[in-house]
């Protein structure tokens, strides 16, 4: 009897084990995206409509959105404004707290408890928080109004939610408040990844806290900050729960975001699936461009590092007289 010593190839299991992922992606992600893209070129609208046709001018929906639709443009601008108003203080506070919490000389106590409390709002349902804040700022009776009158800042109740910029400010504040703890935790992890010897050397050379922060910490977490920036931008593009449940986009559509536009066009009123689909595609393209920038920047660094490593190994190999051992 011949010995069966044929080595078994296990590679097929690689395909088999990835199959559920691939199937789920094709059915629940890729097909719906392509379908959405297709609908963007058609006349599909109305409840219970099953038949639809490609438009005579396939780009009509896109043209309408980009050049004629005031509300869509406004929703994009609002999304941008609210995101910026939230991101600048978010990154600022997160950086400040990171600098404080990672400074060994300051030796801040109770960091564990502070971290838990700062991150807490992130876990609670955004919708709940939005309705909560709309109740807190309610007119004429609400906790913030009570506080205003208690402190003597105002004798009359203030209708905060009538003013465009106040409403935008509150939505931005909620976003900031929910996310600065998250950003801080990521930045702290980044700082902890920096070689501590750098700080020791700097301290010996007489660098003060500020110099260490600007010359070592900031350059050291550049990539992580970029990561935070892009993921926050892509998250910001999808902003929906808070403005939707806070004031349904009001007052005067000042907190009406792009995702709310898609939702309202497709699933309310006239059921303009085609226009919503076209808007989705525009949003998707913006997100894709942002992701591409992120990947370009992250990959570039890695590729450069691998190349350097390869060069080093080759050089070492040459030095050893052509014997490669890697």
């Amino acid at each position: 009897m011949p010995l069966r010593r044929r080595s078994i190839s296990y590679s097929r299991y690689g395909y088999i084990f990835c199959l559920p992922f691939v199937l789920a992606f094709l059915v629940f992600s890729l097909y719906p995206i392509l379908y959405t893209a297709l609908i963007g070129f058609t006349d599909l609208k109305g409840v219970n409509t099953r038949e639809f046709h490609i438009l005579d001018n396939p780009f009509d929906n896109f043209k309408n959105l980009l050049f004629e639709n005031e509300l869509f443009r406004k929703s994009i601008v609002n999304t941008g404004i609210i995101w910026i108003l939230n991101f600048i203080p978010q990154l600022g506070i997160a950086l400040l707290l990171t600098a404080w919490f990672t400074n060994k000389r300051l030796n801040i106590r109770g960091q564990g408890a502070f971290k838990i409390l700062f991150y807490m709002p992130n876990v609670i349902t955004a919708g709940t928080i939005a309705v909560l804040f709309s109740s807190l700022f309610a007119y004429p009776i609400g906790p913030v109004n009570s506080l205003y009158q208690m402190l003597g800042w105002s004798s009359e109740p203030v209708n905060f939610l009538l003013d465009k910029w106040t409403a935008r400010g509150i939505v931005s504040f909620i976003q900031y408040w929910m996310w600065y703890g998250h950003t801080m935790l990521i930045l702290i992890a980044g700082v902890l990844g920096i070689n501590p010897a750098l700080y020791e050397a700097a301290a010996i050379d007489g660098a003060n806290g500020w110099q260490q922060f600007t010359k070592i910490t900031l350059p050291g977490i550049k990539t992580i900050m970029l990561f935070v920036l892009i993921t926050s931008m892509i998250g910001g593009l999808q902003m929906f729960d808070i403005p939707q449940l806070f004031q349904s986009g009001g007052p005067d559509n000042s907190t009406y975001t792009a995702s709310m536009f898609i939702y309202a066009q497709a699933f309310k009123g006239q059921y303009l699936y085609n226009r919503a689909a076209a808007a989705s595609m525009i949003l998707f393209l913006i997100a894709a461009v942002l992701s591409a920038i992120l990947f370009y920047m992250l990959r570039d660094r890695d590729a450069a590092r691998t190349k350097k490593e390869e060069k080093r190994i080759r050089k070492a190999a040459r030095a050893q007289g052509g014997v490669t051992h890697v």
Partner: protein
Amino acid sequence: MYSATKKTNTFALKLNRTFIYIVCVFLALMSIMPFWIMFVNATRSTPQIQAGLSLLPSSHLMRNLEVLVGKSFDPLTGLMNSFIISAGTTLCAVYFSALTAYALVVYNWRFRQPFFTFIVLIMLIPAQASAVGFYQFMYQLGWTNNHLPLILPAIASPAIVFFMRQYLLGALSFEIVESARVDGSGEFATFNRIILPIMMPAVATQAIFVFVGSWNNLFMPLILLTKQDYYTLPIMVNLLRGDIYKTEYGSIYLGLSLTAIPLFIVYFLLSRYIIEGVALGSVKE
């Protein structure tokens, strides 16, 4: 001279520290106060809330609950639906992501590297990009008002595969797989009985985040679930804004509290792992 500068230095340090503690305590209060007011107001009557702010609970909890449940808000149904969807999503996401990550790490197949690049590329696709097509597709299948379209897509969770692959690269030694093969264990059984337990720390961390994320999700459920029997808690929050509860302030706060309590419990039981998990997930480049 030296001791004098040292003294001013320690003084400056102390001043600095005091300032930092004040800021941190202020931020901590900012995190707590809105929720505190929410819980307190859930126990107060409408006239009490109208009379002004209070930080102490009152005794109208039961009446607020009666009013709340007496109208369209049904917290138990919402809790059940949210739980079914979140638990299903979590199971699908962590199990199949672990399996996919295992395939990416252990087996040497032709498309391994391209497939990994592909996973990284699709990681940041926003849900809105496919929402309209997804809805139409599910509508044609008759799957609206069904939990499955909210659960099954989690089988393909690229970000979790990415995280678990990183974890496996560090935690798995091939000798374990080899020796399992020598013992005659099938590949699938090896994964389930030996690899999955090794991956437990990563699975647990990701499970928390998937569960919370799914629990809080509003956009997709809002689109797909139109019958009240299927509403999840975040959709029910929407009801609290409507006219039915217009002046029942206490009930509104109670409804909000009920949607938040499960999350507070989860958070305070698991906060250590959550805080660690956030940091872990970020150092991925």
